[in-house]
């Protein structure tokens, strides 16, 4: 097999597979930032105007779920509520269809246990089903508030702890960038919920928290690579933008793979679990997860890493290299060789050579560019 023109011959998928892409992430960071900014503005706008559709678990209240039938529909449900003196203006009555069966879910504010039980039995009678077929959940508003408070407190504690850990394991700039990216993900996921008006349930909160974890996880894998490369490029005068770009291209395939591996089960939950089998509880969870996984993967590439490169550029070591960064062939070269030596020579050549030499030189192959050959094998004894 001839390796000489491998890079140019490979299609985009091939290059992805071999980690030989040369996307200029840092150079195009403004696009990513702009998209995120628009999304965040939309989110905040929606949060202030529409707010979140909080379920009874956070606001307190009673919810019944009854299988629907010809005698049991939304109007019948409202009639039952009115008969029992439950105000219906703020009642949420909706039909949930899943597969072949459908059910009606009714949510109202706090009620006494007697009313709760009475409505349950009347709904059962109306739908002509056993009383046990009617699911009821009831949450007092004070409990709902304390759940929300606890979740928020947990979130803050989580961020502080994780921030400390990343700062200790890597450095504080990475901690800052990772947490900003994480906040970005949560904000946008919450925004999707606010804009579409999905109901926020405990399952949603669980999903949001998963997103936090996943987003951080993903970011840390990328940052680990960046850290590796900072060490590797340490002696050479390579700009932070270059290092970030190289790292991003090197881990791109990993990021895509991981995202795909994480999204597949969630998609299965969403499409099969809630679509075909009709488990509503799964749908709430899966939608939040899907949104979060996508923003999580997006943010570790387009938000966390460019942010890191901006933060790092303030360091004296990288200050005077600001604004300089390799693109295209040069970048591809650095990505493949993973060293800076080749990059400089190429930069020099590209500046004063004509088009043909450039293409000639710029067909780097792995073997030809082996900057430091592997050490001869030694017998290691452990």
């Amino acid at each position, binding site marked *: 097999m001839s390796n000489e023109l491998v890079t140019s011959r490979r299609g985009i998928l091939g290059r992805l597979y071999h*980690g030989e892409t040369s996307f200029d992430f840092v150079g195009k960071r403004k696009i990513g930032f702009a998209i995120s900014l628009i999304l965040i503005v939309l989110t905040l706008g929606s949060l202030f105007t529409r707010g979140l559709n909080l379920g009874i678990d956070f606001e307190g209240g009673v919810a019944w779920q009854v299988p629907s039938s010809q005698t049991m529909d939304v109007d019948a449900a409202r009639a039952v509520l009115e008969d029992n003196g439950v105000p219906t203006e703020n009642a949420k009555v909706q039909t949930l269809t899943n597969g072949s069966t459908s059910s009606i879910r009714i949510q109202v504010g706090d009620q006494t246990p007697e009313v709760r039980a009475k409505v349950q039995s009347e709904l059962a009678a109306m739908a002509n089903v056993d009383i046990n077929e009617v699911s009821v959940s009831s949450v007092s508003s004070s409990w709902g508030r304390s759940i929300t408070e606890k979740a928020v407190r*947990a979130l803050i504690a989580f961020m502080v702890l*994780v921030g400390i850990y990343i700062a200790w394991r890597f450095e504080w700039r990475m901690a800052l960038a990772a947490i900003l990216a994480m906040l970005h993900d949560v904000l946008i996921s919450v925004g999707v919920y606010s804009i579409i008006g999905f109901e926020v349930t405990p399952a949603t909160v669980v999903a949001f928290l*998963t997103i936090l974890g996943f987003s951080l996880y993903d970011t*840390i894998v990328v940052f680990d690579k960046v850290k590796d490369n900072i060490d590797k490029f340490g002696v050479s005068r390579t700009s932070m933008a270059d290092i970030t770009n190289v790292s991003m291209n090197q881990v791109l395939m990993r990021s895509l793979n991981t995202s795909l591996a994480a999204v*597949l089960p969630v998609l299965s939950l969403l499409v099969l679990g809630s679509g075909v089998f009709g*488990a509503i*509880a799964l749908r709430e*969870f899966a939608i939040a997860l899907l949104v979060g996984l996508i923003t999580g993967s997006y943010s570790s590439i387009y938000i966390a890493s460019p942010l890191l490169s901006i933060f790092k550029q303030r360091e004296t070591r990288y200050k005077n290299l600001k604004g300089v960064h390799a693109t295209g062939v040069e970048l591809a070269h650095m990505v493949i060789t993973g060293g800076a030596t080749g990059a400089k020579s190429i930069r020099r050549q590209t500046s004063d050579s004509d088009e043909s030499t450039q293409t000639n030189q710029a067909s780097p192959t792995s073997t030809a560019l082996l900057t430091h050959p592997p050490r001869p094998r030694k017998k290691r004894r452990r």
Partner: protein
Amino acid sequence: MTRRLVISLVGLLVVVLGSFAGNLVADNTPALGLDLQGGISVTQEPVGEYDSVSLDLAVERIRDRVDSLGVAEPEIIRQGDAIVVNLPGVDNQDEALRLVQVTGAVLLRPVLLAAPNTPADTSSTTVADGSSTTLANTASTTTTDGSSTTSPVTTLATSTTAPGGPSRYPSQAVTSVPTESSTTVAFSDVSTLATSITEAPLGAGSPTGSDVSTSSLAPATMGDPADPIATIIVQNTDGSEIYQLGPSFATGEVFNNDAKADIISGGWGVRVTLKGGSTGADLWNVGAAQCFARSTVCPTGRMAIVLDGVVQSAPNVNQPSFSGGVDITGSFKESEAKDLARVLKSGALPVRLEVQAVQIVSPTLGDDSLHAAIVSGLIGVLLVLLFMLVYYRLLAIVVVIGITLSGLVQWNVISLLSTTNGLALSLAGIAGIIVSIGVTVDSYVVFFEKLKDELKSGRTLKNSAERGFKSAWRTILAADIVSLIGAFTLWYLTVGSVRGFAFFLGLSTLCDIIIAWFFTRPAMLLLARTKRFQRGRIFGIDNTVNATGGTA
């Protein structure tokens, strides 16, 4: 080196498969949360003033009552101050609510009649069962006799004294602490309070109480044990004796919060002091005087200490008046005395639990969710494995075995904890596990990608595998630790489904670390040494070229 790897690999397989077999043999299977099998969940939180002892006792009381109901795999969890009771498979919400609403309130009730429980009933510890079977007759006697309690009392008064042998209670006695007794004061107390007896709930309560009992002669119990003015029929803690109790004349709040088990005149007993004034000693002495005099209100002369409808002790009252302290003595064992002291302590400052959330899931709804979660979860895993197979070809075998092992480890832990700690697998938990598949697969992706990098830079497969794992391990560890921090924070600080989710997230992350070190590492390093792998092309990278010296 090779030997170590083989030991690690074989060791893990033995441990995992061994514990799996062990769980199968012991028939441990993961318990399902009530969102998966239907049931009732009640969350209660204490309001007002209480101390943690009473809260602990309340949890124990709930556990006793739930256990006595025979619910399969009930889950009673303290989450901070909140008490969550999950009763899978229970569908009667009234019964469930009645069951879990313990107050910790101790009522002092006069014993109208007492009888040893029949052996058949002693075996059953269920309060409801016991009273429905044996006392239905006694109760109906009362009904036919109207509100007059004298005739059953006289008939059964003999039986109270007769069975003194088997029961230890008649031998118990309440005596005043000698050092603090002052007869004159006590007498004057009694005389002043004698007038107030008629005004006290006791005097008015007697007829009302029997009314309540006659009207509510439900098959299960007569009178609600929580209703202080009702006449009730209850058992003692071990079900050996059964009592008809009159309206209570005081609550446990007459005592100070200082009850303690002590050796009193040669045997274990409980010593407790009375609060002073009209809320303490006065109330107590009214009742004591009645019992001592064996008046119609308290014909047996015994005073029952009742906690949540169970008689903790029913000692004879040996003197008409007490001041300062009360000793309860009798043939107590040390543990019994301590239990009683704890009950009195909790009764002195009872915890008021308020129901904060009730969730009733119909069995069909739960069933649907479980089915959907399992099938879609498995299909999701299959899709991921298929993707791995397409992408990493032969190496996907390692991923498949790794995920299977990780799944087995989780199954083992969940089954074991289900049996020992009452852990139940909730829908949120299953979802957490499904999500964690992504993270588990990621460890392989990180490793394989690093391996690929190393191979590309011209190293041999064996070398690349070692170097690749080393750097991948660092990444995996860093990322997993973040997940663990998250899981722990959530578990510690939140309640309900979020907490359940956090547990399973933490568990699967730990599994990931364990499998990566004890399985993936040895498996890959050993595979990398085999001739077959070194010859072949893995990852579509022609490593044979590089391995033979890097000539193109």
